[in-house]
Structure formats: C-alpha cells, structure tokens
C-alpha cells in the first residue's frame, strides 16, 4: 500500500465518521422535532377543546343576555306603565284635592263678604284667572248686579241687563257657557270676550253667575279640572251665596 493510498483511506474514513456524526445529530434533531410536534399537537388539541368550551359558554351567555334583554324590556314596559299610572293617580289626587279644598272653603262661612272672598280665591288660585266678575241676580230678576270682581272694569260691569248674549243665556238656561277657544293673551285685545260663564244655581234657579274673561298668562287653556271646579261652583257656590244672603238678613235674591 502506497502512502497515497493510505492517505486516501484515512480521508475517506474521516469523511464517513463525519457523515455518521452529522447523521446522529440530524437523528437527534429529528427526535427533538418529533417531540415538539407531539407537544404542539397536544397543545392544539387542548386549545381546540378550550375554544370549543368558550364557544359554548359564549353561546350560553348570548342566550342568557337575550333572556335578560327580554326581561329588561318587560320590566321597562311595566315601569313605564306604572309611571303613567302614577301620573294618572296623582292627577286624580290633584283634582280631588282641588275639589275638596274648594268645597270646604265654600262651606266654611255664612258671611257673604267672606264667601265672596273665598270665591275669588278659588277662581284666582285654583282655576287660574285674574280677570273675572261675580254677579248676583237683582231682586227684580231682570238684571245682574256686580258683587265682586278682579282685574276688570267695575264701572262698566256694575249692572248687566239680561237681554241677550252668553251671560243672559246662562241665566236663562242655567247651562254653563264655555268659549270655543281662549282669546288673545293681551287683555286690551280681548275686551269683554268671555271665556266661561258659570251659573250659580240654587236648585233650578240661577242666583248669579261667575264670568271669566281671562286666564293667567302661564295658563293657555281650560283643563278638565277647571270644568269640575266650574260644576262645583255652579252647585255649591250658588247655594252658599244664597244661604249667606239669608243668614245676613239681606234679600235672598233669585
């Protein structure tokens, strides 16, 4: 064997050893990678299971949210209904309180001056007018005499003949007169325009009337409560006024 051949064999052997080492290293890397793949597959499986579980939780939560949303909508609807009912009840309470106060006050005194003052207070504070006149029928029954007023020309309204017009009609029929609409806010522009004329009745006879010419500036129209107060005035104020006249020893007009 020549030196050349020996060198070549040595190189070859070294090359083979190197290849074997590299192959072992690759085998080792392959084994590592296979372990990694196994671990990753296991992790992926676990994550898939988690995702699946979270999806089912999400679906359950969405379902619960929908149910709660429906319940909330129902509760809100009930709350709105209760609020509206509360407002209605409060309105009724308000009506009853107004009627009670008006009725109580009208029967509090048999003194005519005091009664007229009460009547004015009711018209100003409960109905909301500062332009009105209260008339009593004259002893002869053919005219109306002014007995109290607020915010109107007393001289002009001192006495009213029962010829024609809404006031005369109210006295004749005993029926309340109500204008179709509330006239202009400016008092000068609506001189003598009646908003309402309420008969003050004693049984079937009209003892006097309350004539309302204007409402307070913040009150734009007559409301249901006003009609109830008008009815109350028509029956109770008339009787009280009549009784106060008798109690005072004056003429019991009408």
């Amino acid at each position, binding site marked *: 064997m020549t030196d050349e051949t020996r060198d070549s064999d040595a190189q070859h052997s070294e090359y083979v050893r190197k290849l074997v080492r590299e192959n072992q290293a690759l085998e080792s890397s392959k084994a590592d990678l296979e372990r990694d793949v196994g671990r990753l597959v296991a992790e992926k499986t676990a994550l898939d299971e988690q995702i699946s579980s979270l999806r089912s939780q999400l679906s359950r939560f969405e379902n619960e949210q929908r149910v709660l949303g429906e319940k909330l909508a129902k509760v809100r609807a009930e709350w709105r209904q209760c609020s509206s009912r509360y407002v209605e009840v*409060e309105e009724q309470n308000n009506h009853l309180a107004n009627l*009670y106060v*008006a009725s109580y006050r009208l029967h509090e005194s048999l003194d005519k001056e005091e009664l007229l003052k009460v009547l004015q207070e009711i018209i100003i504070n409960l109905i909301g007018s*500062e332009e009105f006149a209260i008339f009593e029928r004259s002893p002869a029954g053919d005219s109306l005499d002014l007995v109290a007023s607020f915010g109107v020309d007393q001289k002009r309204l001192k006495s009213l003949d029962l010829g024609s017009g809404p006031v005369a009609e109210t006295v004749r029929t005993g029926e309340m007169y109500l204008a179709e609409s509330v006239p202009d806010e400016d008092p000068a522009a609506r001189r003598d325009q009646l908003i309402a004329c309420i008969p003050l009745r004693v049984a079937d006879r009209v003892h006097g009337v309350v004539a309302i010419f204007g409402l307070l500036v913040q009150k734009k129209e007559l409301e249901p409560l006003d009609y109830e107060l008008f009815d109350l005035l028509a029956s109770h104020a008339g009787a009280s006024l009549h009784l106060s006249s008798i109690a005072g020893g004056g003429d019991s007009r009408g």
Partner: protein
Amino acid sequence: MSKKILLVDDSMTTLMMEKMILRKGPYDLVTASDGEEALDAAQRELPDLILLDVVMPKMDGFEVCKRLKEIPETKDIPIIMVTTRGEPEKVERGYELGCSDYVTKPIDNLELMTKVRNFVGT
C-alpha cells in the same frame, strides 16, 4: 328627623292646597299668612324650605325674600316663590332677590312635590 317647610300665603285656599299636597311627604308644615308673620316664623322656626307667595298685602313676597336674605340666620334657607304671574320679568326678579326656584298658580301637585324634594328630599 322630618324637614320643616314654612308655607306663606295670604290665601287660605292656597295654604290648604299646599298642605294637602305636602302632607304626603314627611314634612313638618308651618304656615304664615302675611309677610311680617313670615319673617317672624322664618327666624323662629328656621325651616329647611320656604314656599313664599308673591302677591300679599302689606309686604309682598319679593320684599320678604329680600329681607330673609339679609338676615344671617335665614339667608341660606332655600325659597320657592309661588306666583300667579308667570311672566319672565317677574320670575327674573325673584331670582335676582335670591329665591331658589318658583312655581306658578294654579299649583300642580307633581311639580310642587318635585321641586320641594329637590331641596329637602323625600
């Protein structure tokens, strides 16, 4: 402890109405029927709130409000003016004199209760 409210009005009808509305709340109600009586009652009772009518004989509500705001013991008591006149200038005058709020007549019970609760609670 219930809150004390002083009601001031020369009209018995309005006082009765206010009492009927406010009786629903846990309030101790005190009344005065004119300005001077209101000044005395405010200093004596030291209420938590005053409902003060504007139009009164002798001393109107604006004057009462002004005087109450000058008295150290009563200057911080909130005042709700009760007025038949809802014109802006009347309302503005009340605010200038130190009133805290106002209600117009005819009194609406829900409005009054809401405003009273704003100052003294339920």
